[in-house]
């Protein structure tokens, strides 16, 4: 029963809950796959066209399916009162929320990252840039979870916050999309990818340090 036990306690609980809702995990992943697969159906079968847009397609699909998983993050905890219990714990709320987000990313973002290479090949992205795609998603998807969680924390008290959440969060996802997709496009063109990659990493550090505090503050307002 220390800081670390509280952290691992939250992770263990949330991963266990995810495992008992395996259907939800599969759905986010399936959504990602379907959105990506719709693009080839909607474009002309011109050589190289899809490959050129593949980074943007993959990134937008990852972004949308992350958005779908946010609801799970706080909604049920809010409804059954366990969120109150976490807020009243003697351990710092931002610390517990960081644990929650890590568990959330492990059960959503990480799955997207793992599915991305296959989808990238379907879209015709050159195999040599796949490591870059993976790295950009590894850096970027946690940012999506962290930013999305702030929006979710703000809207969890509203009866139908879904649409508002999308309007709130999607504009904030823009920088992640720009640097994430651009790093992959740059790799396709054989340009250096260090710049956008470092910027993504910097955004991740920023989100990791600030988002938990914003989430904790937003949740306090929401439970009032």
């Amino acid at each position, binding site marked *: *029963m220390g800081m670390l*036990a*509280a952290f*691992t*306690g*939250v992770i*263990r*609980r949330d991963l*266990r*809950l995810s495992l*008992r*809702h395996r259907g939800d995990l599969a759905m986010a992943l399936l959504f990602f796959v379907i959105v990506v697969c719709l693009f080839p159906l909607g474009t002309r079968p011109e050589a190289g066209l899809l490959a050129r847009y593949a980074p943007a397609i993959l990134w937008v699909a990852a972004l949308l399916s992350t958005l779908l998983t946010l609801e799970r993050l706080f909604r*049920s905890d809010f*409804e*059954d*009162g*366990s969120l*109150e*219990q*976490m*807020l*009243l*714990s*003697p*351990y710092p709320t931002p610390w*517990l929320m960081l644990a929650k987000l890590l568990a959330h990313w492990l059960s959503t973002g990480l799955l997207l990252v793992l599915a991305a290479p296959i989808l990238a090949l379907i879209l015709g992205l050159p195999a040599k840039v796949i490591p870059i795609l993976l790295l950009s998603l590894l850096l970027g998807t946690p940012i999506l979870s962290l930013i999305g969680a702030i929006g979710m924390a703000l809207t969890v008290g509203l009866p139908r916050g879904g649409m508002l959440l999308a309007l709130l969060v999607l504009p904030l996802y823009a920088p992640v999309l720009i640097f994430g997709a651009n790093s992959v496009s740059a790799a396709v063109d054989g340009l250096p990818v260090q710049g956008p990659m470092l910027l993504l990493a910097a955004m991740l550090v920023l989100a990791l340090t600030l988002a938990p505090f914003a989430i904790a503050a937003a949740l306090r307002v929401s*439970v*009032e």
Partner: protein
Amino acid sequence: MSPISPSFSAQSLTCHRGGRTLFRQLSFDLAAGSLLEVVGPNGSGKTTLLRILSGLRTPDEGRVLWGNQPIAEAEDDFSENLSFIGVQSGLKRELTPIENLAFSLSLARTSRLTPEQALQALRLCPFADIPCQRLSTGQNRRVALARLLMLGSPLWILDEPLTGLDTDSRIDFERAMFAHAEQGGIVVLTTHHPITDPQSALRRLELV
């Protein structure tokens, strides 16, 4: 139990909600060993008062003191000593009682019983490994009460703890509450049916 004898007080609390004043200038002082029963009709602000007392909500005026410190400033020291059960029990439906209690334990700094002992005290052992969603409302309520016994925090703030309990569990729980007060704890609770009072430690606060 914390070595210093606790004291819990409210100083001129005022709360407005939806253009209505729920209560104004509400003050009380609870020393170690006291029980406060908050009664009143639906919508009289019982739940709101309890949320203010637990620090989940800030009062429009006034303050709540733990020892001599406002709870907003004593945050850690206060939450370490508080067990709160809201209208919702704070249990995960998908998890078993034992998993729920183990999680509560990891969020606490101190405890008095192990999860197993706490379940035993409320005769919940046969249900320890059944997901809470397959237990009855009353059984879920008892799991939440088992959490109280497990943590053994000095201050209990309970919103309708007796709802859904059968007569036996109700008597058990009232006994546990009075025992807690006798050992120097403080209990604040709301009820619909006034509880039977075997001792004079019980005070009643009526909201209108």
